[in-house]
C-alpha cells in the first residue's frame, strides 16, 4: 500500500483493508484539522446569521411594523432565512465537522482524502449563501424545509455525495473490528439523507405531486430531516461522547442496538401526523400516529442508556463543558420525543395544531436536543484538533446558562402560550359560534411572544459567548497554550 493512496485505490472494492495500518487518535485529529475547522468556522458564522434573522422575525411577531418597509426582511422571508440558516448553515456544517471526525476516530485508521471534505465544505457554503440570498430576494420554493431555490440543488447534491463518499471510504478502511453504535447511526444518516432528498426533489420540485400527495410528501420529508438526519447524528455524538468523557462504557450496549433499529423502523412513518385533521385518508394518519407512539420504544431505550451512564458521575459531568451540553441535549431528547408522541394523538393535536405549541416543539428538538449536543461536541473537538485550550471558562459558562435557560424559557413560553391559543381558537359558545375572534386570540398570545423574544435574546448572548471563545482560541498565539492533561491528548506517534 502506497503512503498516499489514490482515490481509485481507496474505492477499489477488491482491496484488502488489513494491509493498512492502525492510527492513533492524535493522528486522526491532526488529519481532520483542516476540513473540520472549515466546517466549524462556517457553522459559527451561520449560527450568528441565523440568530440575527431569528431576532428580527421574533420582534416582527409582536411588532409587525418593525422593518416592515424593507421587502427583503418581511416576515415570510426572514423567518424562512432563519430556518434555512440554522438547519443547513449551522446544522449541516457542524454535522459535516462532527460526524466525519467521530467516524475517523472510531475507524482508527489513517485518514484518507480530506480534500474531498474541503471541496464539499466550499460547495456547501456556496449553496447555503446562494440559497439564503435567494430566499431573501423572494426566490424561495413554497415547500417547507426545501425553500432554497432550485438552482442551489446541484451544489447540495454534490456536497451530500462528497461527504457521503468520504464517510464510506473511512468506514471501508477501518482498522477496528467492532462497529460501534455511533458508526451505525452515522452510516445510516448518510444513507437516509440522500434517500429523503432525492424523493423530495422528484416528487416536490421536478415532477410536483398535487393535492394531498404533495402535502404528505412535504411533511414526510420535513419530519424525517429531523428524525433521520439530525437525530441519528446527535445520538451518535451522545453515544460517543458521554462514555468517552466520563471514562465508563455505555450503560447497556444491548439497548443501544435495539434503539437504533427501532428508530430505523418507526421514525420513517411518523411525519404524516402533521396532517391530522387534513383531507388525508384516515388510515394514513392512523399509521403515522401509531408509528409516533411506537417511537416511545427507542426514546426510552436511549434515555435509559444515556441517563444511567451518567448516574454516579454527576460531579465529573458538571466539571466537563462537553458533558454539560451533551447531557442537557440528551435529557431534552427524551422530553421532546415524548411530547412529540403525545402531540400525534388526535385529541392533543386538535388543540396544538396551527398554534405556537408546534413552533416550540420544533425549537425544543432542533435546539434543546440537537444543537446543545453539537455545542458539547465542539467543546471536545476543538482542543484536540488545534492542540490548544479553550481560552475562557467564564464564556463557556455564559454560553451554557444563557442557551440552556434560554431554550427552556422559549419552549415553555411557546408551548404554554400555544396551548392556550389552541383552546381559545377551539372554544365555541352554545350556539356554535367562536367565543374568541381570531384577532383576540392573536392579542392574547402577545405576552408569550414577548417572552419568546426575551428567550431568543438569551440565546443570542450565549451564541456570542461561544463565538468569541471559538475565534479567541483559533487566533490566540500558540505560546499562550496551557498544554496539560486531560483535555489534550498524549503525543501523536511521530512525536512519541
Amino acid at each position: 500500500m502506497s503512503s498516499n493512496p489514490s482515490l481509485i485505490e481507496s474505492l477499489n472494492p477488491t482491496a484488502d483493508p488489513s494491509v493498512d495500518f492502525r492510527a492513533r487518535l492524535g493522528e486522526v485529529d491532526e488529519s481532520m484539522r483542516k476540513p473540520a475547522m472549515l466546517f466549524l468556522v462556517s457553522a459559527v458564522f451561520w449560527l450568528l446569521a441565523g440568530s440575527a434573522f431569528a431576532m428580527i422575525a421574533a420582534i416582527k411577531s409582536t411588532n409587525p411594523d418593525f422593518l416592515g418597509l424593507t421587502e427583503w426582511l418581511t416576515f415570510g422571508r426572514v423567518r424562512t432565512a432563519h430556518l434555512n440558516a440554522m438547519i443547513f448553515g449551522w446544522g449541516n456544517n457542524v454535522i459535516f465537522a462532527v460526524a466525519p471526525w467521530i467516524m475517523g476516530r472510531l475507524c482508527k485508521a489513517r485518514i484518507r482524502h480530506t480534500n474531498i471534505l474541503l471541496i464539499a465544505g466550499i460547495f456547501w457554503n456556496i449553496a447555503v449563501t446562494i440559497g439564503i440570498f435567494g430566499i431573501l430576494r423572494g426566490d424561495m420554493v413554497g415547500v417547507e424545509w426545501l425553500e432554497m431555490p432550485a438552482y442551489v440543488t446541484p451544489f447540495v447534491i454534490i456536497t451530500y455525495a462528497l461527504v457521503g463518499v468520504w464517510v464510506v471510504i473511512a468506514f471501508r478502511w477501518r482498522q477496528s473490528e467492532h462497529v460501534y453504535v455511533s458508526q451505525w447511526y452515522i452510516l445510516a444518516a448518510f444513507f437516509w439523507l440522500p434517500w429523503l432528498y432525492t424523493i423530495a426533489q422528484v416528487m416536490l420540485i421536478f415532477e410536483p405531486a398535487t393535492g394531498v400527495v404533495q402535502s404528505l410528501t412535504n411533511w414526510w420529508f420535513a419530519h424525517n430531516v429531523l428524525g433521520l438526519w439530525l437525530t441519528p447524528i446527535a445520538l451518535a455524538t451522545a453515544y460517543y461522547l458521554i462514555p468517552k468523557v466520563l471514562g465508563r462504557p455505555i450503560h447497556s450496549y444491548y439497548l443501544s442496538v435495539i434503539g437504533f433499529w427501532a428508530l430505523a423502523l418507526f421514525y420513517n412513518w411518523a411525519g404524516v401526523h402533521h396532517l391530522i385533521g387534513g383531507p388525508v385518508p384516515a388510515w394514513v394518519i392512523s399509521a403515522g400516529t401509531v408509528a409516533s407512539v411506537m417511537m416511545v420504544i427507542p426514546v426510552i431505550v436511549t434515555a435509559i442508556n444515556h441517563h444511567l451512564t451518567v448516574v454516579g458521575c454527576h460531579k465529573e459531568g458538571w466539571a466537563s463543558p462537553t458533558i454539560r451540553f451533551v447531557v442537557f441535549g440528551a435529557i431534552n431528547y427524551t422530553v421532546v420525543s415524548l411530547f412529540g408522541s403525545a402531540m400525534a394523538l388526535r385529541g392533543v393535536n386538535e388543540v396544538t395544531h396551527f398554534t405556537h405549541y408546534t413552533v416550540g416543539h420544533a425549537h425544543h428538538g432542533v435546539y434543546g436536543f440537537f444543537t446543545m449536543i453539537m455545542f458539547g461536541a465542539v467543546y471536545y473537538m476543538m482542543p484536540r484538533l488545534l492542540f490548544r485550550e479553550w481560552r475562557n471558562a467564564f464564556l463557556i459558562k455564559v454560553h451554557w446558562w444563557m442557551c440552556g435557560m434560554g431554550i427552556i424559557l422559549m419552549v415553555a413560553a411557546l408551548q404554554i402560550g400555544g396551548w392556550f391559543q389552541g383552546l381559545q381558537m377551539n372554544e365555541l359558545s352554545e350556539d356554535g359560534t367562536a367565543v374568541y375572534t381570531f384577532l383576540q386570540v392573536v392579542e392574547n398570545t402577545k405576552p408569550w411572544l414577548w417572552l419568546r423574544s426575551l428567550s431568543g435574546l438569551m440565546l443570542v448572548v450565549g451564541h456570542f459567548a461561544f463565538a468569541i471563545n471559538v475565534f479567541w482560541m483559533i487566533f490566540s498565539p500558540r505560546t499562550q497554550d496551557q498544554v496539560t492533561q486531560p483535555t489534550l491528548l498524549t503525543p501523536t506517534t511521530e512525536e512519541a
Partner: protein
Amino acid sequence: MEWSQYILVGFVFASLFFIGAALALNWAHRHGQLSNLEKGAKTIFDDDEPLGEVTDTFPVKRKKRSPKGI
C-alpha cells in the same frame, strides 16, 4: 405524473430503504456485530483516552492538575 406513477416511485424508494436495512442487518449478523456486545461498548477506549479516566474538564480547573504524559 399520474397518482399511480407516484405510488410506483414511492414503492421503489421504499423498497430501497427496506432492502438496505435488511442487508445491513444481515451483514451485522454474519460479521458478529450483534454478539458479545458488552465488549464492543469498550472499543471507544484506548491508551490515549483510557477506560476509567475523565477526559474533559473546564479550563480553569485543569490548571490545578499536574501535567501528565507530555
